[in-house]
């Protein structure tokens, strides 16, 4: 049927050069990642519990930024309602561990699965909207989810609930276990997105990022790819929500469904560099350090964060990682052909 599949006799019939996928950079990036993870994994033996609790917050930021980048940076979906899934993840953990009696560590991935199951039908609703309407729509959906959750007495209705399922574990261990779990989730999420972007789906998503109309005209099933991304991002945000609740042992509708998360995710991705895998990780680190060092400033901290955001968007429109201008790649996803000229 497809006539062009037969070898063409047009100009130049030289065979296809070797396609390279950035092998050396991938090995270097992989080695760097292993080293960083090894050091972070050993930290519970060295640092205080307070520091571990803080670092779980950093890992949650890495997960949230990576997920929002997948949504907005690759899928072109500017969602300001991911707190819906952060909340379902957090509440899901509490409900599964407290009411159903599932092991709390097992409850975390199960809660993420619930997020994916909720996101699938929700996408059909959200995808009826586009652009700014999509953004507002996701926020509305998050508010609806929050209102629904506050009707559920089993999870404390409007006042929230505590996570007591860990109480059998001595705090020293509990904090270390939650730390390791969160580190593991962050690594799985970042590496998972990297592998996704190297895959066939990643090729489609990169094309969608650059021009959805041209992508569909080249055979890319744009809506299907976006839906998959939306569902994956919901699960990822659910993991982050569960991590946050496992870390603080408390869930409240006002904070876990807070639209602040939307602002934080945008900040992390825009500061770090949208449309790259490294960017959100860098952005998460920057936000974490700002948050940490400005904690004493009270509300002024928001002013400083806003100032940093403005400065970076003006001076480095492609984010901090964009300053490398593609010269450094820790997670190469492209295809290079070795052309001899």
């Amino acid at each position, binding site marked *: *049927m497809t006539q*062009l599949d037969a070898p063409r*006799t047009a100009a130049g019939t030289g065979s296809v050069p070797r396609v390279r996928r950035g092998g050396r950079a991938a090995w270097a990036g992989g080695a760097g990642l292993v080293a960083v993870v090894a050091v972070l994994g050993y930290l519970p033996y060295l640092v205080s519990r307070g520091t571990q609790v803080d670092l779980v917050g950093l890992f949650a930021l890495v997960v949230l930024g990576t997920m929002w980048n997948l949504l907005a940076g690759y899928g072109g979906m500017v969602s300001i309602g991911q707190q819906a899934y952060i909340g379902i993840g957090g509440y899901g953990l509490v409900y599964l561990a407290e009411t159903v009696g599932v092991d709390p560590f097992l409850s975390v991935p199960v809660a993420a699965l619930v997020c994916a199951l909720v996101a699938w039908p929700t996408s059909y609703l959200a995808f009826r909207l586009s652009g700014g309407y999509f953004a507002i729509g996701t926020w509305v959906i998050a508010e609806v989810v929050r209102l629904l959750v506050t009707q559920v007495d089993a999870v404390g209705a409007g006042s929230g609930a505590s996570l007591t399922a860990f109480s059998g574990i001595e705090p020293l261990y509990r904090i270390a276990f939650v730390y390791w779990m969160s580190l593991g989730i962050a690594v799985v999420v970042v590496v998972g997105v990297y592998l996704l972007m190297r895959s066939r789906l990643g090729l*489609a998503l990169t094309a969608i*990022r650059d021009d959805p109309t041209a992508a569909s005209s080249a*055979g*890319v099933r744009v809506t299907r790819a976006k839906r998959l991304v939306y569902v994956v991002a919901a699960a990822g945000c659910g993991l982050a929500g569960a991590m946050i609740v496992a870390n603080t042992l408390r869930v409240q509708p006002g904070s876990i469904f807070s639209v602040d998360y939307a602002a934080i995710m945008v900040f992390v991705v825009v500061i770090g560099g949208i*449309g790259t895998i490294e960017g959100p990780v860098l952005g998460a680190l920057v936000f974490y350090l700002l948050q940490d060092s400005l904690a004493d400033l009270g509300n002024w901290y928001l002013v400083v964060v806003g100032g940093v955001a403005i400065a970076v968007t003006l001076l480095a429109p492609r984010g901090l990682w964009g300053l490398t201008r593609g010269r450094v790649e820790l997670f190469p996803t492209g295809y*290079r052909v070795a052309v001899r000229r």
Partner: protein
Amino acid sequence: MTAPLLEVTGVGKRFGRLTVLDDVSLSVAPGEAFGIVGPNGAGKSTLLNVVNGVLSPDAGTVRLDGADVTRSGAAARCRAGIGRSYQVPRPFGGMTVFENALVAASFGTGARGRAAAEGAWRALETAGLTGVADTPAGALRLLDRKRLELARALATGPRLVLLDEIAGGLTEAEVPALVETVRDLGRQGVAVVWIEHVVHALVAVVTRLMCLTYGRVLAVGEPRAVLADPQVVEVYLGSTIGTDDPVVEGTP
């Protein structure tokens, strides 16, 4: 007579109160080259958008190989064999030239791995872009962007290629090569619908020509007969320009 590969029947399209296509019909046989001319704003590009599924028409049907595809999306139609180049190039700017073609080869044909890379490379060879394979598409000049449009359309493994003004901006020496490429497609059984203001290039290849004005078919048939039609001369060619119009044209 062979069954048509593409059959457009009674297509209408409006943007608000502006009627851009009004009862347009055409049919293209497998391997046939079909030309479209018409003044600016006649609705030529819009017609291609309706054929490849980027826009859905308000009236009429589009059939590919006998199957009604009027309600299917652009991706499905591409997979069914319609390749498309855009008048205003739409490169995947953050991807390399090779990756651009690879997207088309992977998702247009369903090929994977080596087969997809080979399809992409052949398309780049045909379009003369192998030398810039690793260049980001966003950094290309207009002419190379147009070549990339052609490469991407070909990489999808089409049975029907829709070309929208790809000769504009080519030098006089480059036009014959493009004409040869289009002829080559015909030899391989690939049908072509080609919109072009470089009329002599069109006349060199197409077996039939259609003139569109204000969204209506003014004339269709044997190219020289259509170009000689007094109405076509009046609305499109003007009284002084014949088929030997300047080769190098500015693109809008």
